[in-house]
């Protein structure tokens, strides 16, 4: 039997599971468009940040290491959203 001492990362696991469920619920409801995409990416960003800070333990790592990983997460999320937004603005086949 695995012992489960008090650990905030049990809560992190629960948040990750709930966030996964929410994105799927939104998509299953047929909600599409810029707002839905923004929500999906925001939740992916939120989940990624939880993994980086709590699971990878970078919350209390030297600032430069935390900044590199949080920076990667932010830049990738912004680039994805920007390309998605541009695809809506200039789409010719949708």
């Amino acid at each position: 039997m695995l012992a489960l001492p008090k650990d905030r990362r049990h809560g992190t696991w629960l948040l990750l599971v709930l966030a996964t469920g929410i994105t799927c619920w939104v998509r299953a409801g047929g909600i599409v468009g810029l707002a839905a995409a923004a929500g999906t990416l925001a939740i992916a960003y939120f989940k990624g940040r939880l993994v980086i800070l709590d699971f990878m333990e970078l919350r209390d790592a030297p600032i430069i290491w935390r900044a590199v990983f949080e920076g990667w997460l932010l830049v990738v999320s912004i680039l994805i959203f920007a390309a998605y937004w541009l695809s809506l603005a200039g789409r010719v086949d949708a």
Partner: protein
Amino acid sequence: MSAVTATRELGGTVARRLPGDRDVWIFIIAELLMFGAFFVAYIVNRAGEVRLFNASQLTLDRTLGVLNALLLISSSWAVVQAVCAARRNERGAVPRYLGLAIALGIAFTIVKFFEYSAKLGAGLTMMTNTFYMFYFCLTMIHLLHVVAGTVILTVLWNNARGGAYNSSNSKGLETGASYWHMVDLLWIFLFSLLYLLK
């Protein structure tokens, strides 16, 4: 860089520490940059063929994607617990948590096998269209990382069975854990891009 936990209160100051081996963190950064480029390449290509990507995405089994997301999230949690158990000198719990993480990683691979089988059985390959080229390439590259991570966890599990990890020796365990969490992090974005974003 020594290897214990991230933060410790030391006389009122906070000691910031990087868990595990610094060289592996540099390797992880390189991996994230590579996958980041893949993600951007996918979304830029999607912008040129939105209708094709949306129609192809509908053929994916979202339930299996969700299942795999939950498997990796839970596996990452189990690895976190293994590291915590080592720091508490609960040597018996370390291999049990690692065993759980390995089982969940293997389950991810099995789910992916069934998913690929269904797609190939329906005549869908990476040559079908641009979406499927990205789908197969990105998920297969990620799957290779899952398999490699599972092998690493198995080595750690074997060491842990011999009582190798404790509060004064957890660097190797932390290093393997960091790699496994990266695999989890990458799937969060792959799942969102390939299965959800439309």
